């Protein structure tokens, strides 16, 4: 009986002993869980965010020739002397981008429709000489400036390397470029050694609309890096990307379609177009946790 009483007493004592702190803990636990849930909700909310903004900047272009074509066909000198010489990443273009980004746990999916103006230049050089009279010669130079306007639609996956206020990121994706407009400007200059002296001359440029000479669209891959700086509710961004064109930008069916250009022996090569794109901009969050649109992300 004593044993039974002792066991019962111990049980009650233990229960009481454990129940006292347990009650306090329950109270604290509720408080902690509420805070935790709130924090987790905030974090969960922060893990998903839509950002919308604008950015703009400059770009440089490079035409990559896949097949050579020439309107001038040499009959007594090698064909490659009639090939064009391209200037790479020398002519500045510009672009403005509307950025829509869905952010989730440092990863972002970003759609960035861009109005992009690009320029690239190629040149041709010809000369005619009299083998029996060195003074009889003429040099002629054609400088052809291509200006294109595209609606570039990139879809990018971006990864924020940190979650700090200054966040470096890398991004990669694909893009499609839809032609809006294009023009060509041909400047002819030369040096005449045969008309009584050394005479340099230059004509007014021939400027023609050239939308028909380019394909309606091309696509490619792009990648790059940049940084975000969180300031208040907005992110300031600076990024540099490389757009790698994968398909021909020249319309083969219209290669000789412009009589003005055909008249000077111009026929565009098949080519892809690469761009280095530098952009500066800011984006705004579309969701807020705090009151009065107070920033939720104070990092």
């Amino acid at each position, binding site marked *: 009986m004593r044993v039974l009483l002792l066991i019962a007493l111990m049980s009650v004592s233990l229960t009481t002993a454990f129940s006292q702190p347990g009650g306090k803990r329950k109270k604290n636990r509720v408080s902690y869980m509420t805070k935790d849930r709130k924090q987790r909700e905030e974090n969960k909310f922060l893990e998903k965010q*839509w950002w919308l903004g604008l950015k703009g900047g400059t770009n440089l272009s490079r035409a990559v020739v896949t*097949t050579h074509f020439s*309107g*001038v*066909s*040499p*009959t*007594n*000198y090698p*064909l490659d002397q*009639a090939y064009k010489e391209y200037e790479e990443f020398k002519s500045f273009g510009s672009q403005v981008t509307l950025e*829509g980004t*869905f952010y989730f746990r440092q990863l972002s*999916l970003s*759609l960035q429709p861009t109005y992009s103006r690009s320029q690239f230049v190629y040149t041709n050089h*010809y*000369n*005619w*000489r*009299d*083998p029996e*009279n060195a003074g*009889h*010669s*003429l040099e*002629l130079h054609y400088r052809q400036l291509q200006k294109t306007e595209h609606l570039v*639609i990139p*879809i990018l996956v971006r990864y924020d390397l940190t979650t700090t206020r200054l966040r470096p990121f890398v991004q990669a994706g*694909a893009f*499609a470029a839809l032609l809006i407009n294009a023009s060509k400007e041909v400047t*002819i200059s*030369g040096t005449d050694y*045969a008309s009584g002296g050394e005479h340099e001359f230059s004509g007014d440029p*021939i400027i023609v609309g050239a939308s028909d000479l380019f*394909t*309606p*669209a*091309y*696509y490619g891959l792009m990648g790059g890096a940049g940084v975000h700086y969180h300031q208040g509710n907005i992110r300031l961004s600076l990024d540099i990307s490389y757009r790698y064109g994968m*398909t*021909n930008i*020249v*319309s*083969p*069916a219209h*290669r*000789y*379609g412009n*009589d*003005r250009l*055909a*008249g*000077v*022996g111009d*026929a565009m090569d*098949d080519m892809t177009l690469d761009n280095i794109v530098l952009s500066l901009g800011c984006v705004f969050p*579309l*969701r807020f946790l705090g009151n009065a649109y107070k920033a939720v992300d104070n990092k």
Partner: protein
Amino acid sequence: MHDHTTSPIKSKRGSARTMLWLVPALVMFCLSCVEETTPELEEQKFARLYDDNRFNESLTPVDVAQTADGGYLVLARRRLPESHFAGIYLMKVNARGEFMSAQEIDNQFVHPVGDLMAIEGNLYFFCMDELTVQTHIARVSEDLADIAITPLQAGLTYPSAASADGNDIVLLSYDHVEKLSVLSRVSPDGSVITSRGFDIGVGEDVEEPIINHFIGGGKRFPFLAGRIPGGAWFFNGFYNYTFSLVFTDLSQDQPMGVVQGQHDDGGFSAVVPIASTKFAAARFNFGDNFLLPNVLLTPTGITSSVDYPGNTLPELVPNATVRILRTVIDDTQTLVFASETRSKQIALLFYEEATGALLGSHYLGFSNPFEVSAVIETEDEGLLVCGTAYLAGRFPRICLFKLPREELAEKVR
């Protein structure tokens, strides 16, 4: 509050789905826009200037013909510094107009005369010996590997014009001894089947423009030789002191009929017989040009070229070169008049053969001066225009423009 926070989320989820759908749609659109170069595209349309970097070289096409491999062979005159006459230059290009090879014929042979005629797998043209001025016939294989030049069996001199008549050739030449315009039927082997001479008139003044035509630097005349299908032969040349269109049956010394010009200041610049008395023609008169896409000429009477008014074209250079091609464009029997404008472009004017109505026009060549030499129909029912491009405004070089059938159809609609 709950609704306030969840509905935008749903909306944004919808946006995300839209964005995901956009990706394949965009990819498919872009793929559909990708244009790749094909050999067919390159053959259908091209424009080429054939450059020779020798400062003193001068190349002026005479005629062009399509070869069995789809390429083209161009016959041209080239300047010979040591001769009064033009030398002979042949150029072969492939179906895309890319230069393949060229031959400069020995300077013994000069003054190439078109047409460049395709007969039984070979191409033929006429030229003459520089010293004897005797007419020679040149046979050229399509790849320029085999070129044979043989004198005609009869002593014809100064070849002026030629065209194919089945497997025979109609040749106009000038006999400087007897002062005759001579029209002959010639076989490709060089034998003369029949020949008739027509008196140009008496006196040095009559002969002078003819000789100037040959030695270059002087006015060039649109000499022609041909045959009305199944009917009389004709030539466009000097007869009875006048540059005239002369019809003959090649059996009498007197012509069947003559359309007289205005001494050497007027006459026909191009003539293509359509039927027995129906012609497509062009004429010049003291510098003015007139196109006659639908004209009835009398092969058995004597008339004057000014009796046929035609459409005047002030845009053309004075006494313009005119080439006429009969062809079918967009299911319409069409006459293509090719000429050169005062702005130094090549003009193509399309007329309906049945009515003579103008269907459309097209101009080739800008920035450099251009002149027309020939226009032919190609195997793919396009047009090939051959001419002279003055590169840098000063170097005469051969140029070719290939126009596709679809583009021509748009011009005549």
